[in-house]
């Protein structure tokens, strides 16, 4: 957000951001770029962009411990009107990997309405990464990526069509692992 930020620009910036999100969600495991915006320091540009593009006064947002600051809350509420909520009711959750665990407290949808599930935005941190093969919708043949605790993603994909959807964010970079992605661990040591 620049000083000259006004309505038509908000509209254009949000459309460009959303397009990156569409691409990221459509092609899981690939990196897509998002543009810079003015936001609290602790949030990455990518995480802030997801929140500001998608959230409104119907969205429950869970901020995990380090991210649950007054600065983040004020910024989020002022820009989107979103409701800061607990884990169980969250539509969106932001945090580093460790602080979002355990995952089973988040809602995964119900059989009649599988979309009533949480979207997790995982900020880059020093978690242990393990090489995985992924395939499924949006992936031509297969891809190799690194994930923390792959067993949790494997469990999540077993819930399909219920489950959680993930975005990994790092500065301007965004990568998605939706529930439809199938994960297998390549490293036999694991």
């Amino acid at each position, binding site marked *: 957000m620049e000083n000259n930020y006004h*309505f*038509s620009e*908000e*509209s*254009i910036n*949000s*459309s*460009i951001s*959303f*397009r990156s*999100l*569409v*691409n990221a*969600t*459509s*092609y899981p495991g690939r990196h897509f770029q998002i543009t810079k915006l003015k936001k609290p320091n602790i949030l990455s540009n990518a995480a802030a962009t997801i929140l500001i*593009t*998608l*959230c*409104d006064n*119907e*969205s429950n947002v869970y901020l995990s411990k380090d991210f649950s600051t007054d600065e983040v809350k004020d910024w989020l509420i002022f820009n989107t009107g979103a409701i800061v909520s607990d884990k169980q009711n969250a539509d969106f959750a932001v945090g580093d990997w460790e602080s979002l665990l355990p995952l089973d407290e988040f809602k995964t949808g119900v*059989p*009649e309405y*599988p*979309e009533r*599930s949480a*979207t997790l935005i995982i900020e880059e941190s020093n978690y242990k990464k393990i090489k995985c093969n992924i395939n*499924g*919708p*949006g*992936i*031509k043949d297969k891809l190799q990526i690194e994930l923390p605790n792959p067993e949790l993603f494997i469990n999540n994909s077993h819930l*399909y*069509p219920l489950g959680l*959807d993930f975005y990994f964010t790092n500065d301007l970079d965004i990568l998605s692992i*939706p*529930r*439809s992605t199938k994960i297998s661990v390549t490293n036999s040591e694991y």
Partner: protein
Amino acid sequence: MNDMSKDKNIDIQIYNFAYLDENTKRMIRRALLKALCIPGYQVPFSSREMPMPYGWGTGGIQVTSACLIPKDVLKVIDQGADDTTNAVSIRKFFQKTANVAVTEKTSDASLIQTRHRIPETKLKEQQILVYQVPIPEPLRFLEPRETETRKMHALSEYGLMFVKLYEDIAKHGHIETAYAYPVKTNGNYVTDPSPIPKFDNPKMNNNPAIQLFGAGREQRIYAIPPYTNVKSLDFEDYPFEAMKANFKCSICGSSDSYLDEIIVSDDGKRSYICSDTDYCKEQTQLNSKEEDQ
């Protein structure tokens, strides 16, 4: 002539970019992303009234509006043609409200809104194909209650659909459904492909482009992500067959594109032409190049 109307910037200031307001777009965008995460599942959304009647693509233009970016090159087709009323109106609508570039060439377009066809030219990665959908629920004519169809999808209970296809075979010797032929997306949800001819069904399978579906009156959004398995329902002994009129286009001579039948004289003489006008144009140009050589 009002001078102000010549200035495109003024149109843009009257409307929010691509017509819809930001709050509506947020709601549609959340639905679209969940739709991409759950291929073939119909996500309910609170469809807005658009400046056109239901049945003219109100769902499609809401999806397009939520996805459009300023540098998009937009193509709009109706039954494969770029120059029919519906296509022309929607194209003009987005020229006016989003000031985006437009094209008739499938390969140049970054976003294509379509009614009842998939272009013959192969789509590429990151191209978006937006379908206008009249009845998103493939089970609706078999079971009118939404509460029931929702349960059927939740339980993957699609016996009724197979009975319908079986009854076709018992009565007619083959499956009668020639358009809106149901598909199974990612091995899970039975999905309505919108009223495209079943000739187009195989193009949905493993397509590198992003396929989004909008049903305005019925308030549903669904999606088929790229490289997704899309299988037309069939039986082992009655396999699915893509079908078209067994003629050549009388303009470009193509025998592998989908054809429209037209009556050309008072005594009912028929002729066949490509339904995809861009493809037909391209083939005609290729033919004339070959003749020149």
